[in-house]
């Protein structure tokens, strides 16, 4: 893991903290912000009982085996990526420690643990207009009757590949994006956000 003093967020050069201070957060119907430096650990395995038990022992959450669903407990959130692949994400648990804990819990199993925290950043989009903004670049139906909290999806947003995770029914979405695409995606939000009352929120 990179040392804290050496870390730069992928969107740091936009000066988001200063921009957030100037924004009209209370009057906005669309809030965007970067939740940088999230811990993301990729786990692979058969999703069987032993695998589930190991994940439960570390995170306290039940492994979501239904496609495109999430589970949350305490500091952790587990996102379904594929039938044999999940992400364990956390806003405040150290990624090296989480990866070590998981690796120990999987001891003896046919499983893989990879710390991928540094590959992505998270752009959070929330507010009453969040769905309308995402609809401009995402082909998924995000209407509450088909997509709500507890669901995630890997899909495309404009030209970028994203993982979309609805974290609340405000609605609020966490968008996991490769760091190298974060600049592009942020500028896209900046562009389409001008059609809405949007403000930048500090995270």
């Amino acid at each position: 893991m990179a040392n804290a003093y050496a870390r730069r967020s992928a969107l740091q050069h936009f000066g988001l903290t200063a921009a957030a201070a100037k924004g009209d957060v209370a009057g906005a119907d669309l809030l965007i912000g970067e939740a940088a430096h999230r811990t993301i650990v990729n786990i692979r395995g058969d999703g069987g009982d032993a695998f589930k038990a190991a994940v439960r022992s570390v995170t306290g959450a039940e492994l979501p085996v239904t496609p495109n669903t999430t589970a949350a407990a305490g500091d952790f959130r587990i996102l379904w990526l594929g039938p044999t692949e999940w992400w364990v994400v956390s806003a405040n648990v150290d990624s090296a420690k989480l990866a070590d804990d998981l690796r120990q819990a999987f001891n003896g199993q046919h499983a893989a643990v990879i710390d991928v925290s540094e590959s992505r950043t998270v752009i959070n989009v929330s507010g009453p207009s969040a769905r309308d903004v995402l609809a401009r670049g995402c082909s998924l139906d995000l209407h509450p009757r088909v997509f709500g909290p507890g669901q995630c999806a890997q899909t495309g947003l404009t030209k970028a590949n994203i993982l979309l995770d609805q974290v609340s029914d405000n609605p609020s979405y966490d968008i996991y994006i490769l760091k190298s695409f974060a600049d592009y995606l942020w500028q896209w939000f900046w562009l389409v956000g001008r059609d809405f009352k949007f403000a930048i929120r500090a995270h």
Partner: protein
Amino acid sequence: MLLISCPYCGPRDEHEFAYGHEAHIARPTLEQQQTMSDAEWADYLFMRKNPKGVHFERWVHSRGCRQWFNVARHTVTHEIVKVYKMGEPAPKLEQK
């Protein structure tokens, strides 16, 4: 734009998928390989059905769950007749 039902994720836009190749091409067993002629190898490696009608093919949900699966697609109408998981046999279909 095709709407393809991933066996895991459900209906998604075509742009989330990538086409692989014709499905159900069995690799010759080790025993067969000992006695195969060059013509038979060439047939296995290069010759494809290219039908005008229902074609069994492999697709991957590359922007989604990254799983490979089989699609029976009509090459003229683009109608997707059936989507089924890897390892399942080709479905018997009525002639259209």
